[in-house]
């Protein structure tokens, strides 16, 4: 199949995914991933270089957007209570999944690390959607869960950037430029936006993309991944985007209309259905290896900080999607994992987006009005919650 024919098929898939997403209320990312699986397996086509390249950049843009969407003031208020949940939510599945892949599945050390990273994530967006839908995003517990999710994701992007670094001189420019962007761009953004913003030629989006491309290149030279600086850069610019909502929306439009579909399609196209079918048992075991440490590790901390919504909190912290897919794709592209390992990891990541969310919403969904009343009226309210609010 020619590359143009494939591009036409993918463009049709992107269009179909967006319309199905609107009609069924399911995230467009998940549908794009699914259609990528269909295209990749039905037409038996590989991922062309242009798609691999654009998909990699799109993954970095997604990471940047995730950082830019963090509510930093809320994070500052809740981070003390959330840091233990977030760290355990990252550390426990990372250790168990990596050990399981290494010792039980006989994966290489680096492949086991990718498994640990990909399966340690908690999805900011999945958690956010559930909290907004239930109204819990306005309660202390909801804010605490979001902050814990952020801590987990910092662990994930940090591990992905640091664990594979090969010592070389390129680390210095990678770290130096990352730091310069993180500290410099928030300072020059107001001036840059004032002078060049609000134009259809979008210099401010080009500034963000140029920064991300440079980080991507330096990260590659340093045998690392630019997800950590991209995430932190997004975080550093979140205040700027909070003040310039239209600019953020335009960035999202560019990302969602063209870039992120390519990322998820690329991810789906690399999934081998036959490999999954042949390894259903391993798939189930990896899913258990992700869920069990999340549940066992987070549950006691949720009892302390998020009572009485312990099961709900624990299940939400077990979800994953975007960073799990980004980590798996990095592993595949860097030659650390093979197609079967990638297929298994992405399948587990998708299952972890769906299964705990459905269970949390179906069986443990709290009543936001009751929760807000409980927080306001205080009977039964935990001391931790009182302390945090008093300190904020």
């Amino acid at each position, binding site marked *: 199949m020619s590359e143009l024919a494939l591009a036409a098929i993918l463009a049709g898939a992107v269009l179909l995914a967006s319309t199905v997403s609107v*009609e069924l*209320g399911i995230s467009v990312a998940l549908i794009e991933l699914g259609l990528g699986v269909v295209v990749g397996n039905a037409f038996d086509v590989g991922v062309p270089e242009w798609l691999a390249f654009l998909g990699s950049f799109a993954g970095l843009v997604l990471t940047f*957007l995730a950082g830019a969407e963090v509510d930093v003031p809320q994070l500052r208020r809740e981070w003390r209570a959330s840091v233990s949940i977030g760290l355990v939510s990252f550390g426990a599945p990372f250790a168990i999944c990596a050990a399981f892949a290494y010792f039980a599945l006989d994966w290489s050390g680096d492949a086991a690390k990718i498994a640990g990273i990909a399966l340690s994530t908690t*999805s900011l967006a999945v958690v*956010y*959607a559930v909290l907004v839908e239930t109204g819990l995003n306005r309660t202390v517990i909801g804010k605490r869960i979001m902050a814990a999710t952020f801590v987990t994701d910092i662990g994930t992007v940090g591990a992905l950037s640091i664990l594979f670094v090969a010592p070389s001189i390129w680390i210095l420019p990678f770290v130096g430029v990352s730091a310069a962007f993180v500290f410099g761009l928030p300072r020059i953004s107001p001036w840059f936006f004032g002078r060049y913003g609000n134009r259809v030629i979008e210099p401010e989006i080009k500034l963000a993309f140029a920064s991300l491309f440079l980080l991507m290149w330096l990260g590659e030279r340093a045998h690392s991944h630019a997800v950590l600086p991209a995430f932190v850069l997004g975080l550093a610019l979140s205040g700027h985007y909070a003040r310039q909502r239209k600019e953020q929306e335009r960035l*999202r439009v560019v990302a969602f209309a063209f870039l992120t579909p390519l990322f998820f399609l690329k991810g789906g196209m690399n999934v081998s259905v036959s490999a999954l079918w042949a390894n259903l048992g391993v798939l189930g075991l990896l899913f258990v290896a992700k869920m069990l440490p999340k549940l066992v590790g987070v549950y006691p901390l949720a009892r302390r900080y998020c009572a009485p919504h312990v099961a709900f909190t624990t299940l939400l912290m077990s979800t994953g999607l975007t960073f799990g897919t980004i980590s798996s794709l990095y592993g595949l592209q860097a030659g650390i994992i093979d197609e079967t390992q990638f297929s298994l990891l992405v399948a587990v990541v998708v299952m972890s987006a769906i299964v705990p969310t459905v269970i949390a919403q179906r069986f443990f969904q709290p009543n936001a009005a009751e929760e807000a009343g409980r927080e306001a009226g205080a009977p039964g309210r935990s001391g931790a919650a009182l302390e945090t609010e008093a300190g904020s």
Partner: protein
Amino acid sequence: MTFRRMLVAIDGSEASERAYAKALELAALTGADLTALAVEGPLPVYAATIGEVDEVKREKDAFFAKLAARARDEADRAGVGLAVEMRAGHAAETIVRAGTELGADLIVLGHRGHAIRDHLLGSTASRVAERAACPVLIVR
């Protein structure tokens, strides 16, 4: 038979407008308190970015704010006291839960709403009728 507290589900569809008109009539006749419940419907599940969720939420908020304002105007003209509640979630579950929480003795809703998933998975009206703890009036 008299009603003291009625709940009517509104979503801007033709069927829900007919249901709302009927609920206003009944409330005016019986003197019942009327609550209009606007169920925003689920946000995109399993989203990849917060932006995707935020955008849908903003669109829904704007749409349902207009709907609520129109419902209030119509209630004023009909001389009926109206409370409006907006909630997000799956329509049938949210309506049933709101009916229970508000102590409604009648739930009024249209036979078919906006959602395509209703056509695929069965209508909201039939699921509310199955699960509600009080009588349900489905308006055609």
